[in-house]
């Protein structure tokens, strides 16, 4: 009994330490966003602002057209997530259920591309996009991101765990491949699809480097890129940057709280159990 309580105590202690470590930057961001500019860099660090500068938020919002950035971010996030889900479902089904010539090799090549670091692809992708004349457009922000090998791999494994008899039963019941995919496989793979979708939404919302490279005008900027507006020749206005960052991160935070159950069960189910 005592032993059990002790080990439980240890577990909670470690978990608490981990949680504090994870939360620290977040708390620091919020605290900085409410400081006056002279307190931001103060040593020793000031955790609780002497005077709460709520106007930092309204001042930050005036620095750049965040409304436009927000709409851009939403459009890019939604479209690239829908696109990725569609391509992932179709590709994963093909790789798990349909026999075609060279399937193994094609899949191996696709997996191989996962080993190429994203930074290496920045320039070739940029060249491609500019040859297509897509610089500074939604296409440039969305199209390169509508397929993910990792997602295909994840969903393919999930599809493999669906017994073959189910597809036989569906065939006998009058399903074509496409109907079977739509009416049986997709509903069954819902947890995996939610996981893939959430990862995509988070990744897409936070994407910085690619939008920075392919957009020039303010009209096309997304929120993370917009945050660079606080970096001026005179230095970085940290209190405003942090205020804006807090606002940018808010939708993700809300999403996480709503979908927490799915994120955790989705990751657990697709990662550990078939």
């Amino acid at each position, binding site marked *: 009994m005592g032993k059990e309580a002790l080990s439980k105590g240890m577990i909670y202690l470690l978990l608490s330490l981990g949680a504090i470590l994870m939360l620290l930057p977040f708390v620091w961001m919020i605290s900085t966003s409410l400081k006056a500019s002279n307190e931001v860099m103060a040593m020793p660090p000031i955790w609780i602002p002497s005077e709460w500068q709520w106007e930092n938020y309204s001042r930050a919002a005036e620095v750049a057209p965040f409304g436009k950035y927000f709409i851009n971010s939403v459009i890019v996030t939604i479209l690239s997530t829908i696109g990725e889900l569609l391509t992932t479902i179709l590709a994963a089904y093909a790789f798990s259920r349909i026999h075609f010539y060279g399937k193994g090799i094609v899949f191996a090549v696709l997996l191989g591309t996962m080993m190429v670091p994203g930074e290496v692809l920045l320039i070739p992708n940029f060249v491609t996009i500019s040859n297509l004349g897509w610089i500074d457009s939604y296409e440039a922000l969305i199209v390169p991101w509508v397929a993910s090998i990792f997602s295909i791999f994840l969903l393919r494994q999930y599809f493999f765990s669906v017994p073959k008899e189910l597809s036989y*039963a569906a065939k*006998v019941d009058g399903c074509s491949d496409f109907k079977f995919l739509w009416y049986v496989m997709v509903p069954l793979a819902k947890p995996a699809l939610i996981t893939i979708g959430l990862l995509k939404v988070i990744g897409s919302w936070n994407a910085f480097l690619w939008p920075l490279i392919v957009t020039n005008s303010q009209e096309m900027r997304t929120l993370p890129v917009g945050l660079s507006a606080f970096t001026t020749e005179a230095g970085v206005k940290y209190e405003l940057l942090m205020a804006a960052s807090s606002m940018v991160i808010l939708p993700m935070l809300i999403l996480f709280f709503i979908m927490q159950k799915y994120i955790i069960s989705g990751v657990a189910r697709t990662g550990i159990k078939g």
Partner: protein
Amino acid sequence: MKIRLDQLTMKFDETTAVNNLSTTINDGELVSLLGPSGCGKSTTLMLLSGLYKPTSGQIYFGNQDVTKWDAEKRGIGMVFQNYALYPHLSVLKNIMFPLKMQKVPKKEAMERAKEMADLVQIGHLLDRKPGQLSGGQQQRVAIARALVKKPNVLLLDEPLSNLDARLRLEMREEIRRIQQEVGITAVFVTHDQEEALSISDRVMLMKDGIIQQDSMPQWMYKHPENEFVASFLGNPPINLLTIVKKANGYQIGNSDQLLNVPAFTLPKEDNLDVIHIGVRPEDFFVTTNGNQTFTGKIIHIETIGRDTLIRMEIGDTTIRALVDPQHDLQVGDTCRLGVSDTNIHYFNVESGQRLHPVERSMENARETNMEEHA
């Protein structure tokens, strides 16, 4: 619907799963495909369903050649060993699924699904998900789903293997009841002889992709066409002994006993020096009045429920016999066992084929078979 298979062959790379199989299944008949694993019975069913396409040969439903038709076009219902219910759909939606694919109006589909659910006695479970049902209930749902679209043929692939013993007995009676109530042609794959013999109109026993015997269950049991059929059916298994031709009759193994049967019951092929004989354990009776066929020493006695199983040694051969527990037998006793002449089966040593006795020619045997069929 009448089904005809014509020289059906299925090859997977180098292995031939089904080899030149021809047969006819009559309308409304329940036929079992029986055999050890890997004998081609499941492959035959998959060929019937259209999920596999044969390497060669034809399949006819009625007069229609359906060999090249896909599964969804053949109008079949299928029940799988692991039920293969859609886990995300309720029982009602599972049963309605084939109708939804046929674009049957929702209201009609629902009525038909409910009707079918009542037939298989799961009307009270319609809102449950498959995961909340017992194995037997899931199997009932699977049967309802297979039957709801009024298929031409019902195919069952080892439908009882995942159920526990008691439920298996109940479900096999249910399958028979439902099949007869609907009047559908059904093909039932199983490796369990008891299942096959108990519910089918006809049994096809397969081995290595070839039908070994195709006849009514009791006929198959009583008149095995070859040694494989004889040894596959029956529990405890049939006794197979070797008899050797001598000047004055057939000698049992290396013992000094001659097989004591009337000459006219022996096989008419008298040019064979060695013959195998088969006797089912339950066909023996203990005797004392000189009409014994076998005499030997009891080496083991086991009482299982209502039966007593003895093992008896004759020379270097051992035979198993189920005898009346009333006899007071002890290990070490000398025991005399009799067998009725018609219960001794003779087989060719090399081919394993049944040898027919002098008295009854092959033609006679065929006729009897036909009569029993009728």
